[in-house]
């Protein structure tokens, strides 16, 4: 029986792990991988203490800092499928590989994931022209025609990543206005490779072996149309990884875990949450780390009180 199980290996999970170890809380940290979402970022310039660091190096630093702690057990490469209520006041974490661990408290730092469109063809063609990491895969589309779906900052960034490679880029916007940063927008609009289509709702991604196009509803004309494409870059935001505790804790309408922002406690006594999986207003590396520290200090108090 552990005192604490931490789920996640991003900035929140690792910060929690370091603090829990130093408080000598008997802890198990379970993480699918280390580094978290900004892993794919080429250059992070606001991680305090580092003027500029790649997501890759940040991940390495986080993992090293955690592994330097003696007082913590780490299970990496596994995934917590579900957290359940166990005997008395304790909890059971069940992993994807079928392992079970019990603990008095749980801290959920599972972050968020890239949202999918949820249309036919998307899963089948994932990695076959459907792309969720533009920094990684934009260079594969040299001389090709592609579409970016999503008009937030991530979508604009993807367009920018693609300018260096693709011949023609469509930006497919659901409404009739863009949501991203106006400066970036002005900059990309000036590029003749880009064509913006408004009022577009993607209905299906077409292709057998590789993407050949999309079928979409033109909402202005109320008409279904097709576009010929070699690639579809999906950048429609992210969704919290809160499934593992969805039967226990209260979630908001977006699936984020509702926490008390003073303590990071959830609606279920014994479970805390921090970072992007929570209903924190701003999703940032430093904030995730700080909130997770807050959680561990509160868990420490809780464990001492309930000895």
């Amino acid at each position, binding site marked *: 029986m552990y005192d604490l199980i931490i789920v996640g290996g991003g900035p929140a999970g690792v910060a929690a792990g370091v603090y829990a170890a130093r408080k000598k809380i008997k802890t198990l940290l379970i993480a699918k991988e280390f580094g978290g979402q900004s892993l794919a970022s080429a250059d992070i310039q606001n991680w305090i203490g580092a003027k500029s660091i790649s997501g*890759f190096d940040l991940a390495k630093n986080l993992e090293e800092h955690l592994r330097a702690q003696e007082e913590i057990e780490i299970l990496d490469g596994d995934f917590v499928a579900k957290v359940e209520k166990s005997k008395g006041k304790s909890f059971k974490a069940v992993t994807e590989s079928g392992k079970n661990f019990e603990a008095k408290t749980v801290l959920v730092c599972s972050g968020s994931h890239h949202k999918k469109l949820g249309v036919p063809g998307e899963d089948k063609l994932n990695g076959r022209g459907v792309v969720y990491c533009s920094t990684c895969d934009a260079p*594969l589309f040299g001389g090709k025609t592609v579409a970016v779906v999503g008009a937030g900052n991530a979508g604009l960034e993807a367009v920018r990543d693609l300018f260096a490679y693709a011949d023609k880029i469509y930006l497919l916007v659901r409404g009739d206005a863009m949501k991203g940063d106006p400066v970036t927008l002005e900059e990309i609009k000036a590029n003749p490779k880009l064509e913006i289509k408004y009022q577009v709702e993607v209905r299906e991604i077409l292709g057998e*072996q590789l993407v050949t196009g999309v079928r979409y509803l033109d909402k202005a004309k109320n008409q279904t149309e097709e576009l010929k494409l070699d690639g579809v870059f999906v950048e429609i935001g992210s969704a919290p990884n809160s499934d593992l505790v969805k039967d226990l804790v209260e979630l908001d309408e977006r699936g984020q875990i509702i926490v008390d922002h003073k303590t990071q406690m959830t609606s279920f006594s014994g479970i805390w949450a921090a970072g992007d999986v929570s209903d924190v207003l701003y999703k940032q590396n430093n904030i995730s780390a700080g909130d997770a520290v807050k959680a561990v200090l509160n868990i420490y108090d809780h464990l001492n009180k309930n000895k």
Partner: protein
Amino acid sequence: MSKVTIYSTPTCVYCRMAKEFFHKNNIQYTEHNVAEDDAAREEMVQKSHQLGVPVIDINGEIHVGFNRSELERALGLK
């Protein structure tokens, strides 16, 4: 010894992770930068029907993405 080929782009972190994994385990590999090498890109698509990196070929067996335990198994490290 295993014949290992990795198809990568310079900006892909999972490619870096895979290469670091090879170094740590003293695995020799050939790398193709498919951002620049169009022939290699075609070869990768032919072999894997994938348009995403990394694609790793171990003795003719294709692995998509970086999955440490899968590679350990394929290379007989575990």
